[in-house]
């Protein structure tokens, strides 16, 4: 690597100029209660499920990488692929609580999202 390239890497790390990753969500279902899906937070009530198509975004470009979600705490939030759909996922609140969710593009961890599962709403009693 040339001296110039090394300087570029060092400057990039020092200034935080690394690749920018995010997710683009498109809801595929109409959840009975409000659900929040973003790059920073997933908020969903316990007992509620929602399906969304997820497109990886890298440096403002829609990518074709394989996206995977890995909740770090067991039993708080469930995230699995929709059957036979590589980019569609079902997310559901299992129990009230919080868990980090690691997001990887093609096996490389690029994002950490905080999942918040809220108390279930009690309907008309």
């Amino acid at each position, binding site marked *: 690597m040339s001296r110039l390239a090394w300087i570029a890497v060092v400057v990039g790390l020092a200034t935080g100029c690394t690749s920018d990753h995010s997710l683009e969500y498109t809801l595929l279902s109409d959840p009975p*209660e409000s659900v929040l899906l973003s790059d920073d937070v997933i908020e969903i009530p316990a007992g509620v499920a929602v399906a969304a198509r997820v497109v990886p975004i890298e440096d403002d470009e829609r990518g074709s990488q394989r996206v995977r979600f890995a909740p770090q705490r067991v039993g708080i939030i469930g995230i*699995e692929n*929709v059957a036979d759909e590589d980019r569609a996922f079902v997310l559901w609140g299992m129990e009230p609580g919080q868990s980090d969710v690691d997001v990887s593009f093609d096996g490389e961890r690029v994002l950490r999202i905080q999942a918040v599962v809220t108390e279930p709403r009690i309907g008309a009693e």
Partner: protein
Amino acid sequence: MQRRLPYLSFSALLAFATGCDLPLDGGSRGDLGAGSFNYDCVATGDAVCNRTGAVDANHTEIVLGISREVPLLVAVGGRFDLSFRPDGGSAAFVEPARRRGVSVQGGFSISDPGVHAFLARTRDGEVADFIHVEARRIAELEIWSEGVPISGVSLAVGERLTIAALPVDHQHTPLAGGSSWHWSNPQTGEVELEAAPGPFDGAAQLDDEVVIVGLAEGTTTVAVQRGDATAEIPIEVTPAEEVTP
């Protein structure tokens, strides 16, 4: 509150237009539209499987559904079963999104009120489809006979009358899910209770429907209990009607 009858109506129109047969076991489309969830009564006394006509079906089917549709509301503690029939692709088993608060022994029974998603999971763990059911506590037991709610019964000696108890929430909305019922009366000789005909007959004390048989002139009561909910109605037994030739 959403209703699923329009789906059936649309399906019926579609079937009529295309000449295709409707699936006999109907069910409710999942939120992803990948197949149908079917509801099954697995315990005694489920209003969904009321067959005697004591409760007006037009009143209950708005919420409880028809043709194995998944009811919008189930009673806390009511037992039921769900299965999933995919339009195509691999088979899937149904499991609750929340494990806590939902018993999975012999069907499903929800102990925590609120909305509960049920997921159809493939063998690979992927989600083929899902559907939501809301569980509410029983606020009251309504007593019905011959298609109308009643507050008392008058029958003649020798006459038989089928009555049913319908669990409802605070808004008087019917709730699905089976459970054991307990019917009783003071047994002072005016009436006796018999099992109502139906899929779970043979145990009058456990079903949501019961037949009252007038035995002797007088007044008495019949009470019914399901969990913490109870109801009681007065019974008047009148002299046997004379049959004129």
